[in-house]
């Protein structure tokens, strides 16, 4: 499923990007080094950190997109950098868990082993 298809199905608001990146998984968290080390390529990343550093990490870690939760808004500098680097950004009013859960169900991801 592409970023644009997921956003449409989940009601995420588009901020930057073409909506054409394939999503293979989900990473949820706010500490940038954790995201850097543990988010996988082509993950949709759910966070509340809307600054320019999140965009840098999303670009370097090759995340499919970053979704800012809880109704937070991306900084102007973050939007500018995302446009420059081709990073897809979205927002949602949903909290991080609910947004991640909705995305996981939409993507039909298998639950993790206990």
């Amino acid at each position, binding site marked *: 499923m592409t970023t644009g298809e997921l956003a449409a199905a989940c009601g995420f608001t588009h901020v930057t990007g073409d909506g054409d990146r394939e999503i293979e998984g989900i990473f949820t968290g706010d500490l940038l080094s954790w995201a850097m080390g543990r988010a996988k390529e082509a993950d949709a990343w759910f966070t509340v950190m809307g600054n320019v550093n999140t965009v840098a990490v999303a670009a370097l*870690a090759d995340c499919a997109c970053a979704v800012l939760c809880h109704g937070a808004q991306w900084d102007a500098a973050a939007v500018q950098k995302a446009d420059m680097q081709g990073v897809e950004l979205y927002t949602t009013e949903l909290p991080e868990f609910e947004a991640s859960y909705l995305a996981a169900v939409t993507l039909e991801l298998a639950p993790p082993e206990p």
Partner: protein
Amino acid sequence: MADDSIRLHYTVPGDDFTRAGEASADLKSRMKKLGLPPGAIRKVSIALYEGEINLAIHAHGGDIDVEITDDEVRMVLSDQGPGIADISLAMSEGWSTAPDEVRSLGFGAGMGLPNMKKYSDEFDIQSAVGVGTTVTMAVKTA
């Protein structure tokens, strides 16, 4: 040393977390143009970005020298910062001396050096208190 190696130099400004990341973004784009494997590009990008952030947070900036050869990308990060008193402690996940201001940006989780090691095929750190720190990382591309 291969004759056709590419050498790059970057200067990382201290305490500017919006500019930290420029070196890794530039190197990533150069590696893409060279057609290097995506897995290696990702490893270099992550390891170098963590290094840049460390230079900005802890060392008031520093220098990065990169050499791209036939089979690896070698990065040497050097600074004249305060140095690291206990390297094994600094290498442990979750241990951090980052100030609150940096943590509020989402950094300072104590994962910087561990991530740099994790994403390098070769990793070395030399440090002396009051003198500075030099980190060498190499990622295989072939």
